[in-house]
Each structure stands twice: as structure tokens, then as C-alpha cells.
């Protein structure tokens, strides 16, 4: 724990600048969504956010994001495990590649996934053989959101797995626990909070995602239209207030997910092995 520090200069100046910049770039613009919605009547607001096209987009955005985050929770755990525990040729390259969805512009990811998963694409044509249509369906939305959320679980679980005390596992083994039992009873509880944090972050990111989805989804209203696209459409029709109403609902959901992440991180710091 750090103690109170009065030797170093610059607290007032740096803190003042931090708060002013934060206010100008983040807080004031964000509050505009609330200000704009407060100019609507309650009836208009409820009418806008319960419009069938809007609720269908919420259902798709939240449902597909949940599915994608679940896929990433399992696959991410596996990738983190393989990267930390095993050694194989090209490991460092694979480890670097995991961050690709963070670094690659979402529009580029979007057109690339569409090209690969379209019916004539490299993977899409094999899916078509077994009768699965990926691009321009809800499956396409899930694929794009899985891509975008992939690094989160890997990157939250990896450091915890690295720091995990191997002696605990050895103790479990010498007390007669099998390999699977050791994983389930000793390793899994330790990495659970980190996996949940990664899951929640992947979900939050997926709900708001736009660029990687719009190319592969086909954007059919009521079917494959995500919530951010509904905001975009309303803006194109100069329905600024309607756009703000949909945005407010999404912001409230993001707020609760962020709150959950913070609670998880606190839990992680308390019970997990990572500080």
C-alpha cells in the first residue's frame, strides 16, 4: 500500500487538467444523451424504444452478444490455457495474433469476415455444403461479435493462470486428485473471477459493436439489424431524439455491465491470485 505523499509536486495542476479534459471530452458529451432524451415526453420515449423494429434490434444485439461472449468464455479459456501451459512452435506469434481484433479496424475485420464466411468464401462454402448459411444471417452477427470479443477472456485469464501457484496443484495431485478433478476443484475456482470479467467485457464490447457487424449481417430490419444500426438509421432520417432514446437504453445496459465488471475486479483482487 502506498502512503500519503506530499513530497512530489504537481498534484493540483495534473488533477485539475485531468478533470477538465475528462469533463470536456467524455462527461459533457455523454450527458447530452440524457439532456436530449429529457426533452422528450415519456410517452414518446416509451413509444420509440418499444417500437417492434427497435425491440427486435435490442433482442438481436443482446442475444448475439451473449452467445458470442459465451463462446469466447470457453474458447478464450482454452486459448489462454494452451498459451500458458504448453509450448509449441510459433507460440509468440500466436500470442501476438490474439490482440488482432483490438488492432484491426472494425470495418476491415467486417469485410474480411464477410469475404471468408459468404457462401462462396473460403469457410462459407464448406458451411454451405452442410446447409449452414453464415453471412447475412444472425449466425453472421454472432461470428463478427465472437471475433471482436476474442481477446478479452484470453487477456484477463492469461496473467492469473501464469501466477497460479503450481504447488497447490501438486498438493492436490499428491493427495490423490485426478487431473480433471484438480482442474475443476483447484484451478477453475482461481481463474473463475478473471473469466467472468473477460466475459462481461466481451459482452459489453459486443453490444455496442458496429463496424465488424454491418457488412456481414445484411442489415434486414426485424431480422439482422443490430441496435447501433438503428441509431445510425434514425440519425440518417434526422430523428435525433429517437436516436438518443435508443442510445440511452444501451448506455444504461452498458452502465450495469461496467458496474458488474468493477465488482468482479474487486472480487478478483480479493479472492483471486492476481492483484
Amino acid at each position, binding site marked *: 500500500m502506498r502512503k500519503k505523499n506530499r*513530497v512530489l509536486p504537481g*498534484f493540483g495542476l495534473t488533477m485539475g487538467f485531468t478533470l477538465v479534459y475528462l469533463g470536456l*471530452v467524455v462527461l459533457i458529451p455523454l450527458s447530452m444523451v440524457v439532456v436530449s432524451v429529457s426533452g422528450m415526453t415519456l410517452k414518446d420515449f416509451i413509444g420509440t424504444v418499444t417500437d417492434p423494429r427497435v425491440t427486435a434490434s435490442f433482442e438481436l444485439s443482446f442475444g448475439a452478444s451473449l452467445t458470442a461472449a459465451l463462446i469466447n468464455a470457453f474458447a478464450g479459456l482454452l486459448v489462454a490455457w494452451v498459451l500458458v501451459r504448453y509450448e509449441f512452435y510459433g507460440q509468440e506469434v500466436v500470442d501476438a495474433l*490474439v490482440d488482432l481484433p483490438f488492432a484491426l479496424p472494425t470495418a476491415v475485420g467486417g469485410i474480411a469476415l464477410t469475404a471468408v464466411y459468404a457462401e462462396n468464401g473460403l469457410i462459407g462454402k464448406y458451411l454451405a455444403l452442410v446447409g449452414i448459411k453464415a453471412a447475412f444471417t444472425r449466425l453472421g452477427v454472432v461470428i463478427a461479435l465472437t471475433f471482436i470479443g476474442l481477446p478479452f477472456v484470453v487477456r484477463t485469464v492469461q496473467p492469473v493462470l501464469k501466477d497460479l501457484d503450481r504447488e497447490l496443484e501438486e498438493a492436490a495431485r499428491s493427495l490423490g486428485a485426478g487431473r480433471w478433478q484438480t482442474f475443476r476443484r483447484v484451478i477453475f475456482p482461481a481463474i473463475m473471477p478473471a473469466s467472468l470479467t473477460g466475459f462481461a467485457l466481451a459482452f459489453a464490447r459486443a453490444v455496442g*459493436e458496429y463496424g465488424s457487424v454491418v457488412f456481414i449481417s445484411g442489415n434486414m430490419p426485424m431480422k439482422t439489424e443490430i441496435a447501433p444500426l438503428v441509431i445510425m438509421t434514425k440519425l440518417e432520417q434526422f430523428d435525433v431524439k429517437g436516436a438518443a432514446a435508443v442510445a440511452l437504453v444501451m448506455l444504461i445496459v452498458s452502465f450495469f455491465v461496467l458496474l458488474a465488471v468493477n465488482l468482479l475486479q474487486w472480487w478478483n483482487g480479493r479472492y483471486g491470485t492476481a492483484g
Partner: protein
Amino acid sequence: MSPAEPALIRYILTGVALLFLGLFLLIPLAAVFVQAFEKGVAVYFKAVTEPDALAAIRLTLLVAAISVPLNLLFGVVASWAIAKFDFPGKSLLLTLIDIPFAVSPVIAGLMFVLLFGARGGVFGPWLTAHGIKIIFAAPGIVIATLFVTFPFIARELVPLMQAMGSEEEEAAVVLGANGLQTFFLVTLPNIKWGLLYGVTLCTARAMGEFGAVSVVSGHIRGETDTVPLHVETLYNEYNFTAAFAVASILAAVSVAALAAKKIMQLKVER
């Protein structure tokens, strides 16, 4: 070392993990370059050197050149305040800094339309009366990018500076160094790799931002199209080869950013 799994299980787990990464990351990444060069090198170079593409590249570089230094300044100043001092509400402040990570890029763009838009923006009438254009012009693109890339450098530096502690800086101050000397001569050498990594990430994101910029740009070809928006324009015109050619520039930048990250990480570990 605890006993590892039997070799067979190890191979299966590694295989499944690599298959997953291959299907979702490697094949799509490779597809960008394959599609870009599908019709040959000449078509590729024509697509990336035509005037609209060059205008998009210039705009993207301009946006990054303004937004990255501003967020770098914020990141350094904020991490000094947060990592070197104790004050109530620190975790709240960190959560507030994280907000842009959790807000949909489309909502980020919307916020600035609500502030500066000619139709429905709070400052819209005033800006119109004074002939200032923010939305559907370069300033709007810069501001939206500033918001989206806001946390990157601060988030990289705060944990790093917290882990370093303050003893070295305190010694410098006690020995008579002023604040700026302390920062540049003592703190900066310790955080340079993390700083560079944060700047790399921030730059990659600033050049690649799509959703937020898409809302505020207005898509005027050759004027307010950034590189990612130009990719979208070409793609929607069914000019796929040109779209992937321009996209391959961004993909190359992000692969370079990943490589740079790995090299810095290995340097820090050493």
C-alpha cells in the same frame, strides 16, 4: 512443475485452440491481402494511389496527428495525478476514464451530433450563424476520434506508474530537482516502453476508428472520408478489389502494431 497432461490431450487442446484462432483471426486476416492482390499488383497500386484514396490517407494521418498527442498529454498528466498521489474517489475516476471503452462507437458519434449538429445540436444554431462546421467536417472527425481513443494511454500508464512506486521521484525532488526535471529524467525512462505501447495502440485505433467517425463524417468522398470510411464506400460500390486494397494498408498497420507490441513486451520482460 506439476505433471502435464498426457501428450494426446495436449495435442488435442492445442489443436482445437489453434483451429479456433485460425477460423476467426488468421484466415480473415490473410483474406484481406489475398483479395487485395486478386487482380494483380497494378490494380492494387492504382486503387491505393487514386486521388480519393490519397485524400483519405491524408485525412486519417491528420486526425491521428491531432488526437494522439492530445491523448498522450492527458494520459501522462492523468497517470501522474492518479499513480503518485492518494485521494478519495480514485477508483471512480478510473471508471470514468474507462467510459469510452464501454460506449458504442455509434453513440460516441451521436453525442457530438447532439452537441454540434446543425440540426438538433445544442450549439448547432450558434455554429451555423458563425459559419463554423464541425459535424460533417474534419473537426467532428477529430473530436469523435479523441473520445474513442481517450483511455488508451492513461490505461497503459496508470498501472505501470503505480507498480514503479514513488521512491525514485521523491529522492530526485529531495535532491533539488523540479517537477518537470523529475518527470523527464526519472519517471520517463522507467515508463518509456509502456508509453510507446500505449501510443502505438492509440494510433492504430485513431487511424482505424469506423463507427464514431461514420456518424460525424457525412461521407463526402475525397473530403471527409477517412481510410476506413473510404473502404466502406468502395465496398458498397461493389468495388471489392479496391476496397480490400485500401483495407490492406490498415491491416498492415495493425499487424505492425501487434509486432511492435510483442517486441516491447519482450523488452520489458527482459
